[in-house]
């Protein structure tokens, strides 16, 4: 990869209007000697300690990196093993990678001497992160990506350390303006839930990398996060045509299909990934989604659990498992699952929302408020959060109608799709005796329903209220319009309309017979 880029300057900087720095040219490495090749062979066959041992006296930068990386991986492997071996009554005690201390010392020394290449720096950054020195780790990783921008792993480690927009902005100052930086920022924005920005960056990148599956998948993920399911669906479909054995980000695709309730497509996807790689957390998650959509919640839980066994920090699996437990009427387990998701990523608004929902289901609206507030704080432009909060306030136990109205207003401002907010606003204002405001919201609600060509009890309620209200305000013509519409409905509504119009006719002195002439 590196060689390819180094050979041709044409690839080094993509042609855009943006001014990027030139790609740093690396000094020619020492010739790979036999020791190195032997170690690499051991490394490839996953005999890490053996590989490290072979390189014990090698001083080249490449050898040094390989030895360090092999040691790190050996330590990680032992750590994972120990974690299972040491499971006590209170869960798995946190085991540590015993190589970290030695590696840190050694890499630190090399860094000070300047005898370290960007790959070594990457390793140093990883070690520092594991040791909990986040600031230094960031600085080292920035050095690494500045030295060699194509090491995506270094970028991802750096991204995992940028947990807030402030940190990201601080890091931004030190990174050279290479085009890889755009990939990094796009990805970081996506992670930090700044979807609009992420989408913009990716669309820009797509101009240069029009054939990149990765960029396409990221765009689809962003679209999904913005609840643009149709767009996301189309992109993922395309992606699968080009790359039928892909498993990465397919869990997001399954979420899209779940949201669109396309059962058969989801089953096809599940079939496809399971034949590609059964033991990937994504695969398990997709199957879990499928079972969930089919209403087989026990089975879904089994697959989500498997996904979590493969990756304990797999955020969406915890949240989805929480949903399944809610369906299975096991609130304690649901709460636990959601809480784990929240503790892995405190910005996961879905899990906060799930917590609120579970407590609300347990008839604890006051307790649920806290969680809904958290979710609304994290996702302030999402009308669903505000509706949930409002419903809590509105519940019989709390009966805090003014607060509920405030929340519904917010929801209505953020284009609430299901139309709950407007009708609720109208209803609540009516309940509190503010008839003018109620009429305003009923009108808005009616307009919306007309636009969407909806029919149902809400339309009738709005029409009856508006007819009555206009009548009482002496807006007879308007009242007439609503009454006429009411006449299209069933007997009770006709009766209401007739009553209102009867009142009107008696008030205006017309003979009441006139109404009957219009009757169908």
């Amino acid at each position, binding site marked *: 990869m590196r060689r390819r880029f180094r050979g041709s300057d044409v690839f080094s900087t993509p042609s855009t209007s943006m001014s990027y720095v030139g790609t740093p040219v690396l000094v020619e490495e020492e010739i790979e000697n036999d020791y190195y090749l032997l170690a690499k062979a051991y490394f490839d066959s996953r005999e890490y*300690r053996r590989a*490290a*041992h072979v390189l*014990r006296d090698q001083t080249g930068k490449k050898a040094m990196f390989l030895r360090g990386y092999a*040691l790190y991986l050996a*330590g990680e492997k032992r750590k994972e*093993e*120990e974690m299972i*071996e*040491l499971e*006590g*009554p*209170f*869960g*798995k*005690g*946190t085991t*540590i990678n*015993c*190589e970290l*201390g*030695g590696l840190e*010392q*050694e890499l*630190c*020394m090399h860094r*000070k001497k300047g005898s370290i290449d960007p790959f070594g720096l990457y390793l140093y950054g990883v070690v520092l992160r594991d*040791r*909990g*020195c*986040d*600031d*230094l780790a960031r*600085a080292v990783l920035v050095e690494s990506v500045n030295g060699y921008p194509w090491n995506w792993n270094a970028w991802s480690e750096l991204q995992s350390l940028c947990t807030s927009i402030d940190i990201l902005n601080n890091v931004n100052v030190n990174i050279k303006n290479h085009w890889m930086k755009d990939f990094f920022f796009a990805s970081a924005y996506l992670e930090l839930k700044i979807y609009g920005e992420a989408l913009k960056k990716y669309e820009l990148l797509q101009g240069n990398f029009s054939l990149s599956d990765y960029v396409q998948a990221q765009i689809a993920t962003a679209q999904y996060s913005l609840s643009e399911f149709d767009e996301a669906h189309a992109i993922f479909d395309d992606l699968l045509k080009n790359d039928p054995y892909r498993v990465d980000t397919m869990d997001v695709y399954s979420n899209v299909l779940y949201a669109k309730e396309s059962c058969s497509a989801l089953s096809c996807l599940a079939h496809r990934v399971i034949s590609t790689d059964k033991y990937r957390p994504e695969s398990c998650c997709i199957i879990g989604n499928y079972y969930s959509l089919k209403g087989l919640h026990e089975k879904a839980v089994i697959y989500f*659990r498997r996904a*979590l*066994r493969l990756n304990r920090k797999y955020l969406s699996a915890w949240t989805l498992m929480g949903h399944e*437990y809610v369906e299975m009427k*096991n*609130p*304690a*387990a649901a*709460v*636990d699952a*959601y*809480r*784990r998701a929240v*503790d892995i990523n405190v910005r996961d608004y879905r899990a906060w929302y799930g*917590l609120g929902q579970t407590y609300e289901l*347990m*008839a*604890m*609206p*006051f*307790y649920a408020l*806290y969680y809904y507030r958290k979710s609304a704080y994290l996702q302030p432009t999402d009308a669903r959060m505000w509706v949930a909060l409002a419903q809590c306030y509105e519940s019989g*136990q*709390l*009966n*805090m109608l003014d607060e509920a109205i405030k929340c519904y207003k917010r929801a209505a401002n953020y284009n609430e799709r299901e139309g709950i907010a407007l009708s609720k606003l109208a209803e609540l204002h009516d309940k509190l005796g503010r008839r003018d405001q109620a009429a305003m919201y009923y009108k808005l609600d009616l307009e919306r329903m007309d636009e969407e060509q909806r029919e149902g009890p809400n339309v009738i309620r709005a029409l009856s209220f508006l007819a009555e209200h206009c009548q009482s305000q002496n807006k007879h013509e308007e009242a007439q319009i609503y009454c006429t519409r009411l006449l299209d409905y069933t007997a009770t509504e006709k009766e209401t309309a007739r009553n209102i119009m009867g009142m009107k006719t008696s008030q205006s002195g017309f003979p009441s017979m006139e109404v009957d002439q219009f009757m169908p």
Partner: protein
Amino acid sequence: MDTIWRPATSFTLTPHKISVCALIQLYATPSPDTVPFPFSSVSQHNCFAIFLISLIKATDDFVEQSLERLIMQLKAVTGELDMFIAHRLTERLSSLSSADELFNFFAGLQVVFGSNETTNLEDEQISLDTNSILGMFVRRCTLTFNVLSFEGACHLLTNIAAYCDQFSSCSDLSHYYSPIRRTFSVFVVNDSKKEAELLDPEKLRLANYVPDHDPHRLEAGSSAGLLTGTQDCSSFFRIREVQRVPTQAQVPVKPKISSLEDKIEDRMLCQPNEVGTNDTAGHLVLRTNWQVQGFLKEKADLFENKKAFFRLHEFENMLKLLEKLAPELHRVHYLRHLNSLYHEDYINSLDNLRRYFDYSAGLEGIDTSSSSFASNPRDGKYETALLCLGILHCHFGHFNLAMQALTEAVQICHKNSDDFGLACTLAAICDLLSNIGVSSMNGILGSSYCSAIPASLDASLSTQRHLLVLLKQSLERAESLKNARLIAFNRLALAKFDLEQIKRPLLSFGPNASTRLRTCPISVCEELRISPYLLSEFGSDAASLPTDGSFCTSWLKKLEKSGSSSILLDEVGSGCNDDSLSSATEPSVLPNCILQLCGASYLARAASWELYGSSALVRLNALVHAICFADCSSSSDSSLAYVKLVQYLATYKGYQDAFTALSLVEKRFPPLSHLHIQLLRLQLLHEHFIHRGCIKRAQQVCDELGVLVSSASGVDMDLKAEVNLRHARTLLAAKQFDQAASVAHSLFCMCYEFNMQIKVASALLLMAEIHKKAENACTGLPYALASLTYCQSFNLDLLGASATLTLADLWLCLGSVHAKRALSLLHQVLPMILGHGGLELRARANISIAKCYLADSTFSVVEDPNSVLDPLNHATEELEILQYHELATEAFYLTALIYNALGKFEEREAAATSFKKHMLALENPGDQEDSFL
């Protein structure tokens, strides 16, 4: 991975448990003698057994103790045998260097049970009962070893190596035990690196950290005792152990000075906390489940008693470590919640409370043995979450939110038919209603969301009536549950209610309805007496928790305190405690919560006697609380008892004694975290300044008191009333009668509005005083009479006596014709005043008596000088102690006049000199400095 909470029952083998097994083997080796070989007497042998049981059960820490500490304890228990036993122990441990030897060790352990054939033949032979505590422990260890995987055995061996290595590196003890170094040299590597590492500032920084989890530091502070030095040593070496550069790295690292410097530089950028906790957990081993839970429970109790001794970060570090070792132990979040709560960190406190209940559904750690816990465990006990949330909001002064949480808790309890939870929640609501100011409650009770209040009561009823109905309901529930703790709590609350409120029938119409409005001291007494009596029945109650863990803990602590001397010699007379303020170490058979309620009943008694007017009984009850319940009561309760005692001193012995006592009390209860103490100081200062005529300073103090009223925890109406009362008094002392009267008037209105009847009586009395001073006797009389009526209906005898005294003064002001009437009034209340009144009241009464006699035209000084001189002399003595200059001048003036009339010029001159002295002091209040302030 498990998403639902599961009981943690498994038992893991640790090096410390192996040590205990080895010691048990030593204890119960079959031998032909009465006691096995190293022990010389039966008592020594028994003491060793108690020590072993304590090691198994103690809850003084959550990590297994080090070998070094064990050997120190051995030394204290066995005296001269320690060398031998410790040697045997280390020898045994050092022989365990392979999995096979472990196997042999456990096989050999079976000897302690004796064989079935021999037990009934040889009667004297020592053998363990398989069902005894020690027997069960050995069986459990053996069973655990038998199901241990090979990897588990390997880890155990590594841990044993670390355990011994830690010890052998401690130079001052290692001369005992040479075998260790020899055997474990296999495991101990890279010794040369240690020295370099010790220079590393990062590792030195850890030294701050490890001792923190040491429970001794978190307690009374002084108990570290003899072990301090050695423990520091051990923790230091623990760090060395943990921080060792990994052995398998096989990197020829030769740290040079420059690289170390670089490292320091790099480390400056790191976050210190994270470094601290990342690696230290390495070789620490967690204790058994019940020990850890017991430890956490003890800590939670300690929070209430001695919160001042918890430092936020120290405790937090300990919890962090515990969380590392046991990520599934959710109780940690609860403790963290308590820690934040007591350090007034609202956000963390709320967050951790919710985290705890989210993870554990309220089923972990909290006592769920009550009968009500029959519902499906899948449902969780979220009502407890709401109850805790209510208490949290209450603590931070969010009474609306607290009420909402508690209301929801009531609903959930109903839904889950959790009677116990319901009774607790009702009790909490009662507590909330009775403790916070009445004013804050009015808004809450009227609002629509407070549906905890039964629907039968409409919102128009006063808070007090709501409270009474709730209290009765709550008591009924507690009685039907037969839960002594709750019954006692409710009875106490009822007593408190009876004390402060007039009882009137809830529904009163018609001519036959009783209209007598009185408080009833008898019912108060009855409630107070019944409540602690009930507690003796706690044995049948769910609250009875096993206390042997804390017994063992305190036994071990005592052992460590006794230090090097053998406990056998020390046992006689070790009970005495030189620090009278520090708590006794012997744990009680009764659970703490029971004792706490018991103690609270004594405080309530003190409060009731304070109102009814018996100072001696106030003092007695406060003393009982301070002496008998210091250990178990919450720090706010015990500080209150001391406040009462200091107040007694101020009233009866003068300010000098009171301030000396106060400074002692302040040492124990830092005023910053104890509002009572802060208040007390200000109250004493205010009175003192008023008496000495330093009006400006008195007003300053009064203003400071006013600041306390607007505290974060809502406005305390009682305190607000008191501030107004003191403000009016200051104005009165400054002779600004108009202003004083208007303040007193607004005070009266406020008290009347919020139904604070006792304060109404004081406000009326104050009005009477103001009018008396302003020489409006006619206007003053009705106020004094009204006050007297209030006092009578509330049985406020002492306040009534003081009102009568004012009444008598007012009559006297109306002219000498009323002197006889005034005197007879005074004679009525004299027994009360002389028996229970403070220095000031007595002096005032004495002066009034003298004035009555002098005003009486039928009385002749020459014939009966003692009738006036005696009271005046008493008064002057009392006023000198109080340094009450204004009254003192009056008394000396009268004395001088009388001596003049009697022709005793020497005495007259003496009285006149004293008069002059007090007059000067009164005119120049700034001149005198108090040595005791």
